[in-house]
């Protein structure tokens, strides 16, 4: 009787051990889609704001806005953004009025996951102006 009881106890412990192994192995099968989405959008956000920072670093961004040279601005954005990224830029003055009278974009939207980057740009010439830029970005699927 004593030997049988001991064996039963050992089997229970083994069962619990294998169950615990099963549980912890199941942890690796749980997907984390939210994390992947965050990284994806963060990456686009970083790409967008870095592109605007690069254009603004030497004051050329505000200069192009003041001159209304939207085609040059679109071409510059095209150059600094990586291939396969759709963009659409809207520029507002400090009163909230839209300044660009043409669409500053590189074509049709290619993905539903659109990231929006807001950038506040100060001009460095003698007539001080502040512009609000809304840059929308999406990645080709």
């Amino acid at each position, binding site marked *: 009787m004593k030997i049988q009881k001991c064996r039963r106890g050992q089997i229970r412990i083994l*069962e619990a051990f294998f169950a615990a192994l099963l549980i912890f192995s199941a*942890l690796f099968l749980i997907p*984390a889609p939210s*994390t992947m989405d965050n990284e994806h959008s963060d990456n686009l956000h*970083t790409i967008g704001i870095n592109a605007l920072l690069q254009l603004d670093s030497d004051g050329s961004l505000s200069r192009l806005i003041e001159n209304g040279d939207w085609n040059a601005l679109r071409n510059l954005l095209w150059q600094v953004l990586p291939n396969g990224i759709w963009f659409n830029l809207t520029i507002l003055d400090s009163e909230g009025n839209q300044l660009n009278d043409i669409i500053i974009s590189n074509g049709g939207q290619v993905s539903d996951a659109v990231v929006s980057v807001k950038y*506040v740009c100060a001009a*460095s010439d003698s007539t*001080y102006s502040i512009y609000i830029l809304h840059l929308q970005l999406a990645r080709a699927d």
Partner: protein
Amino acid sequence: MKRRNVGRGNSGQALVITALVISLLVISTFYYVYDVMKARPESSQLSLDDYVLMVKLGSTHTLISSLVNMTNGGSSQILTANLEAWSSKLKEECPYGYCLLDAQPRNVSPYISGFYILWGGNGLGISSCYATFNLTIYGRNLQASFEYSINITTSMTIHGFYNIGEGNSKHVEVICKIFNEGTPALAQGFELYYQNSSSWIQVQNYGLTNYGNGTYRITFNAYTSTTPVRVAVKVHDTRQIYVQANATCSET
């Protein structure tokens, strides 16, 4: 008796399985929450770094704009006005909840209202602007404070030599060096003057050699009876900041 033993055994197994299922649910829920919580702070931290970079760059442009305005004949109060406009716009467009940029023009000597202008007669010209900033950001699960200061300085050194020619004619050579924040920089729109008695005569024709490293060699002929020859150079850097300097040339 045997039936009782079997019943007890099944009940124990059911309890163990139930406990395992519950622990599986608890652990998977905990893992999911941990994973989501881990992703969020990284995301906001990344955006915060980008935001601070944007604010610093805008602050730099605000100072440059103010210095351009002031050195080209504007008011010394322009810096305070521009900094207030910049802080106000950042507060309106804050992506986190509450952003406060406290900007203070430097008022410690030699700076007055954030400006230091020295267009001296010893061959040195300085146009400078200085302000300190304190950026405070409050948001959901976020509180950050950044202190930084920005100094925009365009400086110029000149020294000159001259040879006496026929009559009152003097051949003058001026070496001019331009600096932005202490590093060599390019300039444009040179204006040269030499002194004749008590008046300054603008040089219409001069030769300009650009060495490409912020150093310029300027040659011209001056018609003056005043010796030694005194020259003045007025120039804008590529940011449109104006600076000027006077110097007494040496005879060679």
